[in-house]
């Protein structure tokens, strides 16, 4: 009888969670806009069309109001909205629109859990002067207010657009810094990768760090995130988001106070290592390289191991004397 009860309890403990909602967080309104960044290169005249996806990840019908806001970029790659309050008809944004099924829309309706494709359209007339401009397309939830003493909550998300009008220029950038601590007690290892744009436009299209041990064997590789570098700016380059692990993310937030590093997640390290940075400003090369070396010695682990060995040796000697 007792076994039956135990088995029943175990079965319930296993199966009940399977029927609980799997969502990790409760929300009543939720949206995902992709892509996060759109880069456009055009020569006038051009009728640019770029797909944008709005995913309503909530259980309710939602309408998203569309607006366009110019921004500038600071050294950390953050958007700065100085002209947020100006109407978009005041500038080049009057040539920008979101279209659904071929017609311009000021708002987009999205059903629950639907991912809707719309088109960002930009009309670049003949004679348009060469320029580089930044603007965001903002999709803001739009719904009726609630009665009562309330503050209605509205969520919104921006897609950033980098629009370059003019011929493709050869990007010019330099590796300002590639470094890590010379002595690492343990992993993961943070690499500081700093690139400076010395031309008009530059994007790190491809970059990675290859790590070799003291025997010359390749033991790790860190892909770097494709990163846009504004004119004259210096940017820190992190690892590709697909290489992030929860541990690294937590480590970064807690220990490094927000500085962008490219992390090699290896935890157990010993000896001399070489790290080779390869970067390219073109999707298919050329590739440039720089190398650094670092040492790793797990001081704490070695001290503990030595301590244990000494204690064991001492115990053995004591027992030997008594026998």
């Amino acid at each position, binding site marked *: 009888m007792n076994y039956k009860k135990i088995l029943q309890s175990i079965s319930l403990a296993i199966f009940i969670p399977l029927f609980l909602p799997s969502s990790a967080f409760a929300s009543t309104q939720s949206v995902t806009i992709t892509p996060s960044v759109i*880069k456009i290169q055009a020569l006038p005249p051009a009728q640019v069309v770029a797909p944008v996806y709005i995913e309503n990840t909530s259980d309710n019908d939602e309408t998203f109001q569309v607006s366009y806001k110019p921004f500038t970029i600071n050294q950390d790659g953050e958007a700065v909205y100085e002209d947020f*309050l100006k109407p978009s008809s005041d500038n080049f944004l009057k040539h920008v629109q979101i279209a659904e099924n071929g017609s311009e829309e000021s708002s987009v309706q999205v059903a629950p859990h639907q991912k809707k494709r719309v088109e960002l359209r930009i009309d670049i007339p003949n004679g348009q002067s060469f320029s580089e401009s930044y603007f*965001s397309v903002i999709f803001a939830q739009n719904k009726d207010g609630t009665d*009562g003493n309330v503050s209605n909550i509205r969520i919104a998300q921006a897609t950033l657009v980098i629009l370059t009008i003019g011929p493709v220029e050869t990007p010019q950038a330099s590796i300002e810094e590639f470094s890590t601590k010379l002595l690492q007690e343990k992993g993961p290892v943070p690499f500081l990768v700093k690139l400076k744009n010395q031309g008009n436009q530059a994007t790190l299209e491809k970059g990675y760090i290859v790590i070799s041990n003291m025997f010359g064997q390749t033991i790790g590789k860190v892909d770097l995130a494709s990163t846009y570098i504004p004119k004259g700016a210096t940017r820190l380059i992190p*690892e590709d988001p697909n290489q992030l692990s929860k541990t690294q993310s937590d480590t970064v937030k807690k220990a490094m106070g927000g500085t962008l590093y490219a992390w090699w997640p290896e935890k157990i390290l010993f000896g001399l290592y070489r790290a080779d940075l390869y970067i390219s400003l073109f999707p298919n090369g050329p590739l440039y390289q720089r190398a650094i070396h670092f040492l790793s010695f797990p001081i704490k682990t070695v001290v503990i191991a030595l301590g244990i060995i000494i204690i064991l040796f001492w115990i053995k000697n004591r027992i030997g004397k008594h026998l």
Partner: protein
Amino acid sequence: MNRPLLFLLLGICSLCFAPIAHATTMSNGTLDLQINPAGPTPTPLPPSVKNANIFEGPNYTVDETDSSTLGISSSSDFIDFGPLSPTNPIVRTLTLSVFGKTSRGYQVFAFEDHALMQTGGAEIPDTTCDSGQCTQKIQDTWTNTLTFGFGYSKTGSFFNQFANLKEKKLPQPILKVTFLNAIDQAQLNYKINIAGSQNLDNFYSNTTSYLLVPNL
């Protein structure tokens, strides 16, 4: 006497070879790692696998290869303060979630369309905190029950005003994050406290917005 030394040597050797064992589990991708590490000589790369998100048309190219994915959600459609009572502060909590993956980070900007307002036009002003100094950029403590207004706090004790668009205030970033690997959650406390002279003939309302902006 020699045995402990032998153990010590064995221990150091095992630590020494530990990183080599990890080489078998690494993810190496498709890139050729036998690139000559001798110097800055350019070497061609194999064709990019990201080209599926590059679109070309007459006189233009669109690059949507950015691999960040971001989304935002809130725990509620509105914050309901219920009946208001003079010098009786009301605090309500909103949970804001940002989910997805990015290694470049993001910002969340907050703003309100106007102060809490009745249909007739009476307002509950944005709080200036106990010091009279807090704004949409400057935070300060707000514990005095004789300090009136409306504001929010990320910490529970320090409050800000929302950037008021009607008063031409620029939206302010309330969250700046450099990494996202799954989900970040922030709890925001909305606080309201009114004076005895506040008109209570009608409801007060406004709209507070949260704008998620990825970093470049």
